[in-house]
């Protein structure tokens, strides 16, 4: 057992492919913990960034610059009373948040954070993701129906209509990306998430730049549809606070509500990961073919460490700028510890063994983080669509365009 545990250390495939159950379990736990951590960070980041977009400061009091705000929120949510409406359907009401959560976190089994950093590599990876992710609608419909209240019901009706319509356009663009994988020689196309990234490496281009502008249009359609899929502004009709209080989770409170939030943010990260994998080259660093060679590999593998060291430096700069009043002593110390932690992580990433294993995760996370920022940016900028406009965009604009792109991709691919 120990033998199989250690022998995987030098492996070049995912634990699922190697048939190593111990490491697969470890990966599942690590991914679950890391995604939850990312959701917590995202919670703080969204409140801060949204505030800055709206010329406010955002959380400033709980910890330096509100750094501990998400933990305060978490404690509040855990200790809050968990109310179940008297007329609610008990089983469905209890089940709904877990259905959403399980559906979202199951998609992470095939998302590759690096060549070796995925739970497993499924030969139907992208179909698996699309299939499992659409189960999320079930959870939302269950929540709306079981609450036995009119706002949640309206919210879940809107949600199901919206998610079903945008899934069509989304699926078509995904097909056009999958077709691009079989271009160099026909018959080698793949649905595996790792295979799609490797195909982009072999063809020497991210699929977003493939057959310009076809790849770009397909990516744009996916980027719009994925915002609608995750019920985020400007397509946040299912939870439109000005119309439906909070939509499908109006009747939920405390821990269950936080599960819905966790599910929503994890779904945002999941679809962003899919977009990254399909069009933005997944875990690959910029210019893997053009700037090839051990020297460039070394330079690019230093990026994670440099990023963390810069973050640590910025933190220490802000420690020096903290107010000197005794009331701020603990906050200043806390910020210094945080900076030291960032610096320590940066130094760990300089170790060669860690460096070569970590840098693909880093590039993947950078790409996903850009999507996360875009989500907040959209929310800060655009007003919500009316429901008929939403349907019009989905069925009359995105669907025909996606079909056109699909056909053109096929034609160009065959002609080449």
């Amino acid at each position: 057992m120990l033998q199989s545990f250690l022998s995987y250390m030098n492996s070049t495939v995912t634990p699922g492919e190697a048939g190593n159950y111990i490491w697969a379990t470890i990966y599942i736990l690590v991914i679950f913990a890391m995604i939850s951590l990312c959701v917590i960070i995202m919670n703080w980041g969204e409140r801060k960034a949204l505030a800055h977009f709206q010329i406010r400061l955002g959380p400033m009091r709980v910890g330096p610059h509100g750094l501990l705000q998400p933990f305060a929120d978490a404690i509040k949510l855990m200790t809050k009373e968990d109310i179940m409406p008297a007329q609610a359907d008990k089983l469905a009401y209890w089940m709904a948040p877990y259905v959403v959560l399980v559906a979202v976190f199951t998609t992470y089994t095939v998302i590759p954070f690096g060549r070796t950093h995925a739970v497993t590599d499924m030969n139907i990876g992208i179909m698996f993701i699309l299939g499992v992710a659409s189960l999320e609608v079930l959870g939302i419909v269950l929540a709306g129906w079981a609450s036995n209240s009119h706002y949640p019901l309206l919210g879940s009706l809107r949600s199901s209509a919206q998610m079903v319509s945008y899934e069509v356009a989304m699926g078509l663009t995904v097909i056009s990306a999958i077709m691009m994988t079989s271009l160099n020689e026909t018959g080698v196309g793949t649905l595996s998430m790792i295979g799609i990234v490797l195909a982009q490496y072999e063809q020497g281009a991210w699929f977003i730049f493939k057959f310009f502008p076809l790849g770009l249009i397909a990516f744009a359609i996916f980027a719009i549809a994925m915002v609608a899929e995750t019920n985020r502004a400007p397509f946040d009709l299912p939870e439109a606070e000005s119309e439906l209080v909070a939509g499908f989770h109006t009747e939920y409170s405390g821990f269950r509500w936080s599960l819905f939030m966790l599910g929503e943010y994890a779904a945002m990260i999941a679809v962003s990961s899919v977009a990254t994998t399909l069009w933005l080259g997944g875990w690959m660093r910029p210019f893997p073919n053009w700037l090839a060679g051990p020297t460039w590999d070394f330079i690019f593998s230093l990026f994670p460490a440099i990023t963390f060291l810069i973050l640590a430096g910025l933190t220490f700069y802000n420690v020096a700028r903290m107010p000197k009043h005794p009331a701020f002593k603990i906050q200043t110390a806390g910020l210094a510890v945080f900076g030291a932690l960032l610096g320590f992580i940066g130094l760990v990433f300089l170790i060669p063994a860690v460096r070569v294993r970590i840098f693909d995760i880093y590039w993947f996370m950078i790409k996903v983080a850009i999507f996360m920022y875009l989500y907040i940016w959209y929310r800060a900028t655009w007003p919500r669509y009316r429901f008929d406009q939403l349907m019009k965009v989905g069925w009359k604009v995105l669907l025909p365009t996606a079909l056109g792109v699909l056909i053109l991709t096929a034609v160009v691919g065959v002609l080449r």
Partner: protein
Amino acid sequence: MSLAPLLRKVLLVDLLKGLSVTFKYQHPKEIQTEQYPMQRPEIAERYRGLPRLNVNPDNAQTLCIACDLCAIACPEHLIVVKSERNPTTKRKELISWTVDVSRCMFCGLCEEACSTDALELSQDYEFATYDRNHFILDRETLEKGTQPTVYEK
């Protein structure tokens, strides 16, 4: 539909314009929030806040001559001036001067009535207390002003 509006729609020009506007707002200099106890608002010079009784800077004696004009001017009769004639100097001397700011509307009529510039409405605005009776301010408080805790940024 003519070409230009169509292109605008297809290339999402208006949406991108909106994005660029909100992006610029992220600059720290745009932030409007005031972190109140550490960062205080600038009060206009003619703001009518808490009344203040001025003292003569040369001899630290009050400028008030207990003429009672402010009490007469006050539309709400909130000012009570108590005085006593000093038998040796034959002058009226101030014993106590109170004002009930809980009902004061800061109209400034008392300030205008004062003939010696002793009474003035200052720029102080922080006088929240835990008790209604604390709003009846005595001469000592009015000469010193309320002294709120100062926080540093």
